């Protein structure tokens, strides 16, 4: 087996709150191979986006990384100084943040925004070179060359999102984190944007972390999926395994809540509400919402166990 490109070990992120400490990411460990597509699924507030920010060391006070290690291609990110970390962002790990299509600068042309990314990372290029690189990048994400001279308001949502992917890949990173890159787009455009992401990822041989809650999208895009609940990973397994044999009751509920096109009937939501992260239930955090909860679930938090290719944190698995 090859060396993982990203390794996250026992990562904990907490936010200080007047009413108590909010444990947004709680002892999360996983590893990613080069070229692998890894999904992170869970409800809002399960810590998916915070985990992404923590990997990039972008957690701001009152939040802080309490414990754990993140290593990228063997380098411990915690040991880097702020300048080195800044250089590494975008160049080695690119983030396509949630709602990034609205993060484009409205008064700059798309081409200028890509050129800024180069300049900011100390890459000095002649004007002709910059133009050529921008044209190549735009072609990679399936946008016409004329897009470079356009302002964000002249583009549709799907085009803006592809422009954001172009910026994210401009330094050919080995790792792309996409946080709900298509949540505001129509299905037809979503497929096109995800197709673009899949293509550039293959060209760059990069690893991708896709964050989202659409299990259909996960099933069609990622190789392996991690399911997060209340800041913890509760199940990690190859995607086909998860779709066909979800082992954690929460994973099962998440899949069942996806509206099906095959049969009409009751829409199945997940009963109850996600717990408050500063006041987690005893034992397994999912037990108050779990239909299979036993006495043991109320008192003892389940540890992550290996079952074949899968890892599951459930007493019943």
């Amino acid at each position: 087996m090859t060396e993982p490109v990203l390794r996250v070990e026992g990562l904990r992120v907490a936010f200080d709150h007047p009413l108590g400490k909010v444990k947004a990411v709680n002892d999360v460990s996983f590893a990613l191979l080069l070229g692998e597509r890894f999904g992170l699924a869970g409800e809002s507030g399960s810590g998916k986006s915070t985990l992404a920010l923590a990997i990039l060391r972008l957690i701001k006070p009152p939040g802080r990384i309490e414990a754990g290690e993140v290593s990228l291609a063997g380098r411990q990110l915690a040991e880097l100084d702020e300048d080195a970390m800044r250089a590494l962002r975008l160049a080695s790990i690119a983030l396509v943040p949630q709602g990034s299509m609205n993060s484009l600068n409205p008064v700059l042309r798309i081409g200028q925004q890509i050129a800024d990314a180069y300049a900011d990372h100390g890459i000095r290029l002649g004007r002709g070179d910059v133009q050529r690189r921008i044209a190549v990048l735009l072609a990679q994400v399936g946008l016409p060359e004329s897009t470079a001279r356009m302002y964000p308001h002249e583009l549709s949502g799907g085009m803006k999102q592809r422009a954001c992917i172009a910026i994210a890949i401009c330094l050919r990173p080995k790792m792309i984190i996409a946080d709900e890159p298509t949540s505001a787009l129509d299905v037809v455009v979503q497929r096109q944007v995800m197709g673009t992401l899949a293509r550039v990822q293959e060209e760059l041989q990069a690893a991708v972390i896709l964050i989202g809650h659409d299990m259909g999208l996960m099933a069609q895009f990622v190789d392996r999926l991690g399911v997060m609940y209340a800041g913890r990973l509760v199940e990690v397994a190859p995607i086909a395994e998860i779709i066909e044999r979800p082992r954690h009751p929460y994973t099962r509920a998440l899949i069942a809540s996806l509206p099906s096109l095959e049969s009409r009937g009751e829409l199945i939501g997940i009963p109850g509400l996600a717990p408050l992260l500063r006041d987690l239930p005893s034992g397994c955090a999912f037990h108050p919402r779990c239909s299979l909860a036993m006495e043991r679930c109320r008192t003892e938090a389940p540890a992550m166990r290996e079952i074949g290719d899968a890892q599951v944190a459930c007493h019943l698995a």
Partner: protein
Amino acid sequence: MKPLVEAVALSKRFAGGLGRESTLALAGLSLSIDAEKPSVIAVVGESGSGKTTLARLLLGLAEPSGGEVRYCGVDLRKLTRDGRIAFRRDVQAVFQDPYGVYNPFYRVDHVLATPVRRFRLATSRADARELIGVALRAVGLRPEEILGRFPHQLSGGQRQRVMVARALLLKPKLIVADEPVSMVDASLRATILGSLRNLTDKHGISVLYITHDLATAYQISDAILVLYRAHLVETGAVESVVSAPQHPYTRLLVSAIPRAHAVRDWLTSEATSAEISRSANSVGCIFADRCPHVASACLAAPPLLYRTEPQRAVACVRYENAPALSADHLAEVLAAK
């Protein structure tokens, strides 16, 4: 059948600015919502298809450029004062953008307490609190976490659920819900849509569910209208439209939904172009530039609506052997069985 709200050959054109083309947002749509048989009618289409324009016209928030919207048989523009008040109570809205609907200076309690006061829903303060609490819990919120907070302290999903709760409070006859769950998690989406469906089944409230998500439309609605760039392309009973779509655009929509299957066919099956290459003002079928079956007839004139099944109509020349359907008879196609 006695219609509560009707759209008659409704169209809307937004004027272009200096030297710019005007935009056709809705082209002659007719639709009728039955006062006696409550149902959930879904309006599905991509961004720019005219869904939100339709919602705004039906709510009387925008003036039609052609045709009219009727409430109990009277044009909205000709309603008396009492008629307007009744309309405002009977027809409620849940909007797409949960950020734009709140006044940031007021606590969220304000949007809930105002209708209670205006429409005298409660006799005492405790009564009002109880009503609001029930509505909030019905959409999966904890009242103690919501009341007393400012809008910026809530997430998009929470704000949207407060808006659904506000519509529930008034027990209207029709709720026009414009993308009510597009900013909510998949797990909660089911809960909110389930409660919308419940409104129809248990409280007799009709719901016009406007969405880009065909899968949720399939789950909760009885009838469906598929819009594409201001035009109605297919309509009918939701079961048949979604399980066997006839219009090429509806087929594209159905195929673009990622399924939670172990078979990965989603990204490989991308065949139809997602780009629009044709000006909106050219003649012929609006979908011709993206259609895999395009023929010369498609470019010559816009297709009529053909009634391919009793509960189904499609605007595509490939079905020209079926009888043509005039817009006034659309209500029959949409009527719940």
